[in-house]
């Protein structure tokens, strides 16, 4: 049951900001003009984004509406274990720094649009590329659905009932993404993030003052969580939660930049150094995430009893902010749903168009047709996500998103390790992937979709992130089978990349030289 009153001032400010963003999305087609009938332009915005646009784009991409609702909700409900999200968003930057520029270089050199394109070129295997593309699409779909859950939450918090506002928002989103491609989320991300930083800045200073300081907030959370059922803590104690915390942080850090939407953000950068600079600059978003996480405790200290933990932050804003600023803050979360949803649908469409349509259905498809297919599929993906959000329970969406993380990590051997070695055999990689997918799904399902799985082998008891067990199994199978499958399929595994293609500085230089020759 929803008990939120209607706030006209909040709704007015929300709609105003939403309108500005929608307008920006449509106008984005004219920004840094390119021929939008090419997939490189529609789906990667011509790979020309500089440091700042990339910062907004990747930031808008990985810190989503759902993050801003779910992380504080986890802190509100389960205490310290929810804070792994902060450790994970710290560790993701060294990962991006090391793998990002290398993947960018080889993709730029060979005109790859997706990670699956790279896998096909590197390992000479259509099946492995298909598995990579399939995993990417599968993991992305529920993620888009969850953005809608975030959007629904803030709309409900303003007292608006029914599904129609979400449907309208998504039709607008679908229209401007169709028209402008990746330029739309890049431009609207700028607006989104300005709103988010103002909101977080105000909330993190003003609310603690009202609540009597951080000491009081953490003290109240500590006392209240101890009495919750099951009891929770604000600082992990001497129990089995350490390895869960660590493997969740590690597994999630490696999974994030395997997601198609995060890779699309990185591949649209203008150079490898743009990505390296962003590995430093993006930490400001993690700082904001840490502040937002602690808002879960602020909601406890304020004595809020939301109908559902997802309302912890919205209810906190309603308690402490005047209606017009509530609208502003909710717009931050609402627009925070649109930006990643756009990038995710573009990334999923790129995968479908390149690695399923062109690879299997119409090999003769030219660039123009590939782009048209991607644009149409981006509409279908969003329609699918909308049905998902309207007809599937929020619980199932969250379960599927959790599985998405387990699944996407299984592409690590082919994509991230593939950047460093071609020693693995394609069929062994495929077997490892299948084992990881199966084991991870089974582990998560057997625990009714909690991310940690308790493993008991003899005297050893380890409760770790299911994706972590799955990727270990995947790597072991891949390495063990490589000598065997290579003998079974002696056809040469032709690698179309060469070692120099992974050096981003050399690739950028070569691209400039080729352009000069062409001119």
């Amino acid at each position, binding site marked *: 049951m929803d008990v939120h009153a209607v706030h006209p001032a909040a709704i007015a400010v929300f709609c105003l900001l939403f309108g500005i963003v929608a307008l920006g999305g449509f106008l984005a087609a004219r920004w840094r003009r390119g021929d939008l009938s090419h997939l490189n332009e529609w789906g990667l915005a011509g790979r020309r984004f500089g440091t700042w646009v990339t910062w907004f784009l990747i930031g808008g991409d990985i810190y989503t509406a759902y993050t801003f609702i779910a992380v504080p909700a986890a802190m509100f409900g389960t205490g310290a274990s929810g804070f792994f999200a*902060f450790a994970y968003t710290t*560790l993701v930057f060294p990962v991006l*720094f090391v793998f990002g520029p290398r993947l960018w270089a080889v993709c730029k050199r060979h005109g790859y649009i997706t990670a699956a394109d790279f896998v096909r070129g590197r390992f000479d295997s259509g099946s492995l590329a298909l598995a990579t593309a399939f995993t990417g699409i599968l993991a992305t779909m529920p993620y888009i659905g969850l953005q809608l859950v975030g959007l629904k939450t803030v709309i409900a918090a303003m007292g608006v009932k029914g599904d129609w506002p979400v449907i309208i928002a998504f039709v607008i989103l679908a229209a401007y993404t169709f028209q402008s491609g990746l330029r739309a989320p890049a431009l609207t991300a700028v607006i989104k993030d300005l709103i988010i930083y103002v909101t977080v800045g105000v909330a993190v200073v003003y609310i603690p003052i009202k609540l009597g300081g951080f000491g009081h907030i*953490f003290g109240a959370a500590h006392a209240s969580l101890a009495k919750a059922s099951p009891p929770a803590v604000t600082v992990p104690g001497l129990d089995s939660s350490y390895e869960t*915390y660590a493997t969740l942080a590690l597994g999630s850090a490696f999974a994030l930049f395997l997601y198609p939407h995060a890779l699309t953000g990185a591949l649209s950068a203008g150079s490898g150094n743009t990505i390296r600079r962003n590995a430093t600059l993006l930490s400001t978003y993690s700082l904001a995430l840490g502040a937002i996480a602690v808002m879960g405790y602020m909601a406890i200290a304020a004595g809020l009893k939301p109908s559902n933990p997802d309302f912890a932050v919205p209810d906190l804003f309603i308690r402490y902010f005047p209606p017009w600023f509530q609208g502003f803050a909710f717009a931050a979360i609402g627009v925070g749903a649109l930006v990643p949803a756009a990038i995710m649908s573009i990334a999923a469409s790129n995968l479908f168009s390149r690695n399923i349509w062109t690879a299997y259905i119409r090999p003769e498809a030219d660039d123009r047709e590939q782009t048209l297919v991607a644009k149409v599929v981006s509409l279908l993906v969003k329609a699918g996500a909308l049905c998902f959000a309207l007809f599937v329970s929020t619980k199932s969406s969250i379960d599927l998103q959790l599985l998405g993380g387990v699944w996407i990590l299984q592409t*690590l051997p082919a994509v991230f390790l593939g950047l*460093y070695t071609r*020693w693995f055999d394609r069929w062994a990689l495929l077997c490892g992937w299948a084992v990881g997918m199966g084991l991870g799904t089974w582990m998560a399902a057997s625990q009714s979709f909690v991310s940690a799985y308790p493993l008991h082998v003899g005297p050893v008891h380890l409760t770790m992130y299911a994706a972590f067990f799955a990727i270990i199994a995947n790597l072991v199978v891949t390495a063990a089978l490589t000598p065997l499958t290579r003998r079974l399929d002696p056809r040469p595994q032709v690698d179309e990349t060469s070692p120099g293609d992974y*050096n981003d500085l050399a690739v950028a230089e070569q691209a400039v030289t080729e352009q000069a020759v062409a001119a």
Partner: protein
Amino acid sequence: MALNGLHTVNGGHPALSMAEGGSRAQRGRESSATGGRGWLWLLLLPFAALLVPPLYAHESPHLWGIPFFYWYQGVWLIITAGITTVVYRRMR
């Protein structure tokens, strides 16, 4: 346990890149183009610091009323940003 995981997943890069199979000359050219690859090892520090929660799962000392567990991780976010900056400057 967590640290072992780290070494299997992240620690193997230099060895793996040797398996690349490029000629010695090619490898030499690659490393001179990217400058000091050795600096990349610094990027393992945040993993060592954050993947062993017993190191920092403590209530005190507090900072502005915030338990050590939280501000330690916050400080490591800032240190990590510093490390990536240093590595970027050195490799450029």
